[in-house]
């Protein structure tokens, strides 16, 4: 009897894309509305700790919208309403008592287009640590900046030009600067919204390498348009279509033998 119950539970979990392994982020029934238009429909998705999860799907399928729910960047958009629950470390981030600013300081975000502040390279990286007051001495700040740039694989390239504006770097360097900026606030999660879509193949390869290294310390969720990229960098892949989560699973399975026809059509390039 008990065994049977477990089986039913497992079946349900599979249905709702819920994992057995320990998850850092748990989303249940997430609906997002832009005004009257519904952009996401009851998303149930778990994101595992210290692994890379990629969100794929055709344009306008809601994957970026979903990503922005995780650090509540959707709050910035006036007409956007989010329903359902998202828990990070078992804490509901849409609970009225949650301090959004504090939440965002635990989650790094990298945007589609590199958006370094029009400040020096140093100030770009030091921006977060300075804000959150975790560092009191200049020496500690210097060390923090150096370490963050190093982890973003940028230190050797910019160590002599820390005073130059961040906007003077090349596109790929700018994006790695943005990653360094995000790392500098010691987040547990890093969200990446198509981080390579504005970059050339070489810069893209560097970023992908970097993502692979970073996954030992951070939980990374990446939205991407490139199936190859998803296959290269992620351990798990979620396929979105028309605001619904169609399928989620180990990346290998999604690309080799997906359960859903739609997923197969998309990953093989016949659709979307």
């Amino acid at each position: 009897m008990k065994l049977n119950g477990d089986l039913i539970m497992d079946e349900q979990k599979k249905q709702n894309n819920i994992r057995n392994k320990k998850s850092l982020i748990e989303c249940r029934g997430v609906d997002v509305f832009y005004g009257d238009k519904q952009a996401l429909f009851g998303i149930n998705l778990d994101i595992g700790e210290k692994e890379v999860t990629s969100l794929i799907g055709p344009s306008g399928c809601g994957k970026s919208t979903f990503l922005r729910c995780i650090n509540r960047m959707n709050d910035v958009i006036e007409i956007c309403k989010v329903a359902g629950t998202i828990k990070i470390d078992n804490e509901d981030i849409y609970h009225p008592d949650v301090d959004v600013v504090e939440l965002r300081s635990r989650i790094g975000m990298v945007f589609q287009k590199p958006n370094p502040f029009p400040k020096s390279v140093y100030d770009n990286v030091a921006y977060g640590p300075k804000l959150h007051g975790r560092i009191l001495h200049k020496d500690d700040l210097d060390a923090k900046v150096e370490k963050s740039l190093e982890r973003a694989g940028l230190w050797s390239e910019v160590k002599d030009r820390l005073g130059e504006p961040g906007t003077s770097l090349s596109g790929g360097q700018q994006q790695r600067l943005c990653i360094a900026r995000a790392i500098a606030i010691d987040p547990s999660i890093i969200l990446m919204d198509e981080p390579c879509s504005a970059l050339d193949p070489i810069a893209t390869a560097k970023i992908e390498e970097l993502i692979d290294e970073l996954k030992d310390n951070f939980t990374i969720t990446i939205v991407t348009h490139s199936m190859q990229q998803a296959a290269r960098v992620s351990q798990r892949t979620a396929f979105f279509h028309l605001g619904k989560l169609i399928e989620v699973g180990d990346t290998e399975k999604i690309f080799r033998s997906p359960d859903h026809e739609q997923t197969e059509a998309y990953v093989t390039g016949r659709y979307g």
Partner: protein
Amino acid sequence: MWRIDINTDLLISLSLIIVSGLLSFTLAKQRAVFYLRNNEPLRSMPIYHGLYVSLWSTLLPIFLIIFLLFFKDSYLNYLVIPFLSEETIDLGIDEILYVKSFLINNISSLSTLISSGFISEGDANLLVEKYQETRVISFSSLVLLSIILSFVSYKKLSVRYDARRRVERILKFIFFVFSTIAVLTTVGIIFSLIFETLRFFSQVGFFDFVFGTHWSPQTAIREDQVGSSGSFGAIPLFTGTLLITAVAMSIAAPLGLYSAIFLSQYAKPKTRDFLKPILEILAGIPTVVYGFFAALTVGPFVRSCGEYIGLTVATESALAAGLVMGVMIIPYVSSLSDDVMTAVPLSLRDGSLALGATKAETVKKVIIPAALPGIVSALLLAISRAIGETMIVVMAAGLAANLTANPLSAVTTVTVQIVTLLVGDQEFDSAKTLAAFALGLMLFVITLALNVFAMIIVRRYRERYE
């Protein structure tokens, strides 16, 4: 009876030239359309054929007309002076001008001139005849030139003719001419200011003006008048201007900036659409209205407030004028700053928010540095508006040129004094009227220096986003 009226003649020939331009436009265009219909390999579109011919037929004659307008006066002199009697010419330029204005207005007033002996009857008839001749020749030749030009350029057009690039070149030239006109006008104004100022300094010492601390610009009409020597020390005027501008900016800068921050970063779009136009209405209220508001409401209020805490306040005070002026220029600061802050890319704002910055931190550390050049030019615009403001000062701060830094006393400003120097019956070459030019030039130099200074500051501290 014919009128001697060059303006009308110019207008008639101008309209004839335009008609010729339109006609040639249609003709050339129709011919090109005809080529197209016959499937001939037309190189430029029909509209360029039309434009090419019409531009050629109108441009040169129109430039000639403008040229003629400039030399209209010497042409009239050349026409009229030989017929005037010796005595009239001896009387001087004013009389010649008088006769000329009679002639230009209406030829029938010739009889008035004949009866008052400026011109003899025979001469009058000759004058009219000669004028008819010259104008028929000059103006019909302009129209003829237009027709010839259109004919020649029409002949040049063919199926493979590259009219498009030639039109482009002509348009480039026209744009160049127009931009030069704007620059030349500015240069002209500056030079006229400089020359009049030099005349002023031949009567009043340069250092007496720039460093003098006493301003009372009365000059004598008769030698034996009391207080016949005026003194032209400009310092009190400039300190007055500075004082009122400082008071106004201390109101307008914080209020304007903070409302801009609210509008661009905090307000919901609906609130913004509603609030911004209302704020901009402030700039549309005539300054006279602000003036009597300052004089009748704010002035007495400031005075009673001052008396309440035991200060003596003049009824007309720099503070009252400055306060009201500050309110008036709020929209100059807020509206422009709001625009530049809204123009800062959302990606920068999002980047900052995503790092866990609050809205206020984002505004302070990202938005304002990026929008700095625009904010500074908004402040500069407000300052130049405050410096140039006259009405509020006349009504609320008075006309007394006191050298003081106390905002509670009456002061006057440069612009107010320029007005008082020039209103009423004045001799145009007295030191009193010429002082207005000197003040104007000095004001110009100061605002220019202010602009250059601000530009240097901005270049140093701005954070350039792409």
